[in-house]
């Protein structure tokens, strides 16, 4: 082998790398090895991402159907009142519809707001308080709404 290597760069630090003199192996900094913990955070963010899309598809039907019933069909908002709600919740189909809509919309919206808080609230304390408030309001709303559907009494008076 002559002293001239066919490289455009020329010799680096005096070493001419080739099949006989391979460059040193550099390990990628974040390579998973036997000593890396199995998982550091789990797949929560991935599950949340997927949930936003799956719940979104279902919510299109539930929420737009709900708006059609409440605001467009049969006289629009003017017909709404206690008697109207009693009539609707006499049917288990609409009870299940409202229950599913309540849970999916609240969880979808709460997860969306979690993303928004993560994006804009930078101080750890602010994040903690905002998320605490968000989770409290979410749990409270889901429980209240569920209770109302299951304990509705048409003969309350």
């Amino acid at each position: 082998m002559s002293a001239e290597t066919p490289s455009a760069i020329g010799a680096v630090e005096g070493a001419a790398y080739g099949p006989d003199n391979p460059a040193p192996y550099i390990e990628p900094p974040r390579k998973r090895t036997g000593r890396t913990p199995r998982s550091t955070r789990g797949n929560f963010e991935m599950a949340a991402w997927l949930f936003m899309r799956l719940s979104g598809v279902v919510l299109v039907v539930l929420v737009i159907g709900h708006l059609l019933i409440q605001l467009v069909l049969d006289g629009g908002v003017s017909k709404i009142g206690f008697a109207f709600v009693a009539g609707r919740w006499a049917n288990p189909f609409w009870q299940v519809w409202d229950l599913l809509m309540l849970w999916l919309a609240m969880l979808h919206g709460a997860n969306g707001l979690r993303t928004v808080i993560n994006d804009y609230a930078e101080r750890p304390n602010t994040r903690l308080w905002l998320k605490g408030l968000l989770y409290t309001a979410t749990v409270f709303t889901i429980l209240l709404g569920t209770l109302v559907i299951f304990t509705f009494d048409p003969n309350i008076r």
Partner: protein
Amino acid sequence: MPAGTLYRGREGMWSWVAHRVTGVLIFFFLFVHVLDTALVRVSPEAYDEVVATYKTPIVALLEYGLVAAILFHALNGLRVIAVDFWSKGPRYQKQMLWTVMGIWVVLMAGAVYPVLGHAARELFGS
């Protein structure tokens, strides 16, 4: 600058901002909405009294705004899903956004009479 505002785009950025704003608005509405619906557990009178405010002309306008927000969030949400899961989604994202806006305009025009009609009758007589 907050981390969330570093995204600089064109139509893609504005649709993302609008998706975020409408999503947050709908969430706040839903919170209040579950509270007002819970009044059916208090008394029929309490419920009917609060629902009466839903029937006033000014609130009718707010309802029209809510419909606008939901229709945009729903249609654009489907577009986001198509961008993520359809192999040609990213290539057609801009065309899909204009399709979303087209459908949105048509649906909003169709919602004028059902949502605002009763308010107009109340304001201008039938």
